């Protein structure tokens, strides 16, 4: 079993070919991925309201697909209102923040109000961290909300080493998509532990073939691999039989 914690829901892939649910499922079958958590791309790049609603329609009756609920710190009131309405649905496994309002990446000043309102749901928060600056800002958020679990998406990109220095933060998971530096996964496991690393492909922006090979080629124990590909996500998101049935 494998859980891909980062798949972008898009109607077309980067080459302009139709994608949608069918394309995502076909890719999951090809790479033996049982479960995927979808990022509503429309919500990230344009309209979070329509994007979240659309993905809910895609995932609601599909036992293999779940979603992130994306908020936009430029619209805190609207984000919170929609969150209160939709976040209790078990198909939305976490809230995701891809941008700030005053800065291009999620940061404490811009996100505090939304995260405060979100705490009652006790679900994880996905923060997009494609570079060093965004990692530092995400650390500040994670430190301010120690009772919530955070996922650092792309774990710093090319600056992934910055994401490994988590200090006393024990509420952070690293999602693996981003750079293909050969030592990344082993160092991540060495620094934060295999129980804190989550397999994410960033499909269809990136081919799962590359990410899977990066992890499998790492010199990790079988137990660590199982954790990264499967168990950590199952535990973090509560993907037990009960959730999957719903």
């Amino acid at each position, binding site marked *: 079993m494998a859980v891909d914690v980062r798949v972008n829901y898009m109607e077309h*892939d*980067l*080459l302009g*070919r139709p994608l949608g649910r069918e394309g995502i499922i076909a*890719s999951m079958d*090809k790479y033996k991925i049982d479960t995927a958590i979808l990022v509503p791309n429309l919500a990230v790049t344009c309209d979070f309201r329509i994007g979240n609603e659309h993905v809910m329609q895609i995932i609601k009756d599909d036992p293999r697909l779940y979603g992130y609920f994306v908020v936009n710190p430029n619209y805190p009131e609207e984000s919170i209102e929609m969150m209160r309405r939709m976040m209790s649905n078990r198909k939305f496994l976490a809230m995701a923040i891809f941008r700030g309002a005053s800065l291009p990446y999620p940061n404490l000043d811009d996100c505090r109000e939304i995260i405060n309102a979100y705490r009652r749901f006790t679900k994880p928060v996905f923060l997009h961290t494609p570079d060093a600056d965004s990692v530092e800002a995400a650390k500040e958020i994670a430190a301010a909300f120690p009772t919530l679990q955070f996922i650092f998406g792309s774990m710093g990109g090319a600056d992934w080493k910055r994401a490994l220095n988590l200090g006393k933060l024990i509420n952070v998971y690293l999602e693996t998509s981003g750079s*293909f*530096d*050969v*030592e990344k996964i082993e160092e991540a496991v060495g620094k934060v532990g295999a129980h804190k690393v989550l397999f994410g492909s960033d*499909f*269809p*922006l*990136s*081919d799962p*073939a*590359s*990410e*899977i*090979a*990066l992890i*499998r*080629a790492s010199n990790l124990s079988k137990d660590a691999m199982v954790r990264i590909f499967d168990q950590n996500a199952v535990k973090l998101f509560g993907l037990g039989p009960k959730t999957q049935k719903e």
Partner: protein
Amino acid sequence: MDFEIIDANTLFGFDPSHRLDLSVERLLRDMERYKVTSSVTLSTMGIFNDYQKGNEATMAVAADKRLIPAGTINPQTYFSSADEIARIAQNFRLFRFFPEEQGWPIDSVAFELVLKHIAPFKPAVMVDATYPGEPSRLMKIVRDYPGTVVLSSISDNTLAEALALMLELPNVVVETHELHVPGALKLLSERVGAHRIIFGSGAPRRSTASSLNYVLNSELSHAEKSLVLGGNMKQILEGN
């Protein structure tokens, strides 16, 4: 599936920005692990410090026939005469250029001059075109170059530009180490032909497993994969 694999993009030496084993021994171990027949390689000294010393170090390791030497010249420190370049050029069938890591613009006139000086020897040239706009700016520089021009570091945000450049200039090919876009190899093979795609990994800094798996899992036919993984680079190195 057995292929003759030639990795067009490897390096060795010391990496000042990552604590990482980039030794020749490590490179050779990776090659054995992934059944890579031979690798085009060069010393990091030529990238980060002194290209002449780097080229000497590269030639030294090429005593091992599995390693094919790539030369490099830093246009920012290039003050050589055409005679001097003739001495360097005869050693290499491929030259690599690193505008991002060395901090010079890809349409640098100095770079244009370097290409003019090596052009009579017609080596292939591989250029990192990392950022949007760079493949476009490269067009003017390489339009009249008589050998093969290999675009390296092409990724999702430069793929369309690279394809447009390849459609415009038949001597331009693309190297795969930063390419992880699903379906991109099939698209390129349909638009410009699989003979214009060459496999590269960036090893041992980057994962050979990732780059190789991307090609092996692509929609290319077995014959096309064979070209991409080794056949095309073989042709380029033979000067065809």
